[in-house]
């Protein structure tokens, strides 16, 4: 009774690549989703037929994950219509989505690492119960692995924690394609190849084609655009929560696809900040970890941006540079964390205590803090950043997120550090606050302070004098001044032809 999706004879209607047919498995109209004030999806139309492979592309925050999470039932939309297999379900949940035949392979692996592959597949399939379930689960996972990744050497009885990350990803993929009592109809693959080697990637893409040929519908999300062009029938390009283009992949080039992602082009308004004149005063030079990793230099008064797709080594490099600067730069360095809860805020303290901590060494003599000076500093900078609170003695946790973040900015700016590192500090901050902080950063830079700024929002890169674009753990491209535009950043983020 166990079989593998691709081998099943389900619904082979041989739909042509595009074309809205009556047999669309998934049909979405005007789908909207907002998280608080953040509009993640602004009316998305999307359709997917059995036998079709659609590649979903777009920059971070374009709405790809939100869309697939709605399809898989893990989040509920705030507007729009959603139909699966010709019906609009009254309620939609992960359990219902799964029993309807929708499966997901997530980038962050979703398996239990303390269990074996066989045990994990048992968790997915309730029908693998009773006496001898272990043998049947093992047979199922091995059969699926053999089908997708012929020649793999994964032991189905080893704990996943003992397997390599690539092997774990293979098990995750096999679990998604495995089939027992209910048929697999649609599989969503979110960056499935990022942890796979070359051979396994080729095997997976070949399997995806075979699966589609037997009637399965697939959504592929990947930043490796060549994979999209190679395997998908149609690409769906998302920008800022909208679908901006749905080109057929036949005849499509990588460059054309990158251009489609950067269609919303806002003219650069950075003004006439002339950083070039200060290049003689280097505040920090930090060499890369190998020849392909660019050395990064920061001049006095310069705002350096770290760009690229999220999780490509920007954060690690930022921290390594901060650690180096703390020990070498005059007056050390300051850091503004984006993850306020765990890395920024001291939850038991007031605004004043939170704000002054980084400055206390310079406000002390022989280890004794001048409490009066500390208080004046807190009041000055709290006012300068317009922190909305009755007094600086207000507990920091009673502030809104944006105001807490202002206090963290004030902590860094009030200090004597000439070099300040920003770790995507504007997440979840409202637009007004952002504009205030951008202005302050620019005026501080004019006064000779240097900033190294990692951000996941492209718009923020416009505040920077120079950018380093990161890909696969390395700084791969330097962009300066007029050459900072969306297209070049995207081009560098997605890499040259052979990635």
């Amino acid at each position: 009774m166990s079989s593998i999706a691709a081998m099943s004879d389900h619904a082979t209607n041989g739909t042509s690549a595009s074309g809205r047919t009556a047999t669309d498995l998934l049909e979405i109209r005007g789908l909207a989703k907002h998280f608080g004030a953040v509009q993640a999806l602004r009316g998305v139309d999307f359709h997917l037929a059995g036998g079709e492979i659609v590649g979903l592309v777009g920059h971070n925050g374009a709405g790809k994950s939100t869309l697939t999470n709605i399809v898989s039932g893990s989040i509920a939309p705030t507007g729009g219509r959603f139909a699966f297999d010709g019906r609009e379900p009254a309620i939609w949940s992960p359990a219902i989505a799964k029993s309807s035949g929708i499966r997901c392979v997530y980038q962050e692996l979703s398996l239990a690492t303390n269990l074996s592959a066989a045990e994990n597949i048992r968790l997915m399939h309730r029908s693998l119960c009773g006496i001898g379930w272990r043998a049947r689960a093992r047979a199922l996972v091995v059969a699926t692995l053999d089908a997708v990744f012929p020649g793999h050497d994964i032991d189905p009885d080893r704990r996943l924690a003992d397997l390599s990350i690539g092997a774990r990803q293979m098990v995750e993929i096999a679990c998604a394609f495995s089939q027992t009592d209910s048929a697999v109809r649609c599989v969503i693959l979110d960056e499935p190849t990022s942890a796979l080697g070359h051979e396994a990637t080729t095997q997976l893409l070949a399997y995806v084609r075979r699966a589609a040929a037997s009637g399965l519908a697939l959504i592929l999300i990947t930043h490796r655009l060549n994979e999209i062009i190679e395997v998908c029938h149609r690409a769906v390009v998302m920008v800022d929560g909208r679908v901006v283009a749905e080109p057929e992949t036949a005849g499509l080039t990588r460059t054309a696809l990158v251009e489609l992602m950067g269609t919303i082009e806002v003219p650069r308004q950075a003004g006439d900040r002339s950083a070039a004149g200060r290049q003689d005063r280097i505040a920090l030079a930090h060499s890369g970890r190998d020849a392909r990793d660019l050395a990064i230099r920061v001049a006095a008064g310069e705002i350096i941006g770290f760009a690229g797709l999220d999780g490509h080594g920007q954060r690690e490099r930022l921290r390594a540079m901060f650690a180096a600067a703390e020990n070498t730069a005059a007056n050390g360095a300051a850091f503004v964390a984006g993850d306020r809860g765990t890395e920024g805020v001291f939850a038991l303290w007031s605004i004043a205590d939170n704000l002054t901590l980084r400055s206390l060494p310079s406000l002390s003599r022989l280890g004794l803090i001048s409490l009066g000076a500390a208080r004046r500093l807190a009041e000055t900078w709290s006012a300068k950043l317009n922190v909305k609170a009755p007094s600086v003695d207000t507990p920091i946790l009673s502030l809104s997120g944006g105001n807490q973040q202002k206090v963290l900015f004030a902590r860094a700016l009030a200090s004597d550090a000439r070099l300040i590192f920003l770790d995507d500090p504007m997440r979840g901050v409202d637009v007004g606050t952002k504009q205030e902080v951008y202005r302050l950063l620019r005026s501080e830079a004019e006064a000779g302070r240097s900033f190294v700024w990692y951000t996941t929002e492209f718009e923020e890169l416009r505040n920077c004098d120079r950018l380093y674009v990161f890909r696969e753990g390395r700084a791969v491209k330097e962009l300066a001044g007029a050459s900072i535009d969306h297209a070049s950043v995207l081009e560098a983020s997605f890499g040259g032809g052979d990635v």
Partner: protein
Amino acid sequence: MTRRLVLAPWTYSFIVALAMWIATTAYSGIGSAGSTLAAALAFGAFSVVIGTGQMLVIAAGSGNIDLSVPSVLTLAAYVSMAVMTGHDGMLVPGLVVALLVGAAAGALNFLAILLLRLPPIIATLAWSFVFQSFAFNLGGEATLKPPALLSAFTVWAPGGIEIMPLCVMGLTAAAVFVLRSTLWGRSLLASGQSEPAARLAGVRVWRVRLIAYAGCGTLAALTGFLLAGFSGGAALNMGDAYLLESIAVVVLGGTSVAGGRANAVGIWGAALFFNLMATMLNTFRIEAGIRLMLTGALIILIIAIVPKPRAA
């Protein structure tokens, strides 16, 4: 704006201590009130010294605790008594040696935590066996006698004012000052709240914690030095009572077990509470089994009725 009277958590133990003092006095007559309080202050002072050290460690962050304080106390008492050999003239060298032993023991505790990545509870427990066996080898079962001057100081009360508890109150005041107004004190409380945040704000977390553990060992050693004078000498079991008590007075005193919040004054309330409760239950002639049960029940009761400081 209605202002509701909210008492700070640490005031509760003072209130309960006061209630017990009144209850004891009501039972055994007004004449005994002064001596009851004097005894509680004298015995409580030892708990306060060792508790203040424990507070520094507990405030350094979740999981930090020093279980070696009883054996550090004993070892320091043995070493200093051996150095002084009962001579008043050796009092200062004896004190210095005791404090050095304590600081070294605290540093060893922290190095085991840092370098071997042991959980504090394991590292300090393991060292406590080592320290205890040093004390055993040094003095054996014999009690080493203190110099007469030391014994006299611990009970010195000119005009009825006990000097040693007064000095310990000075220590508490110093601890309050250190936590509020020194770079190290602020860094300690920052590290206790969030280690990553403290590190990113430029705090050298491991150095701050090293000093906390060394300070804890030093204060345990000071307790041992004074206690040996007070109780007529260093004995192997002299620290036993202080393992749980040093932790209990800190927690009842309003210091957060999760770290980052320390209260030095509250330790006095908790120490007086413990000692006055023992006196009260003795006065009422309640037998040992019941006494321990009541002690435990009262601790739970106090912690349960104290409002939880998480309102912000």
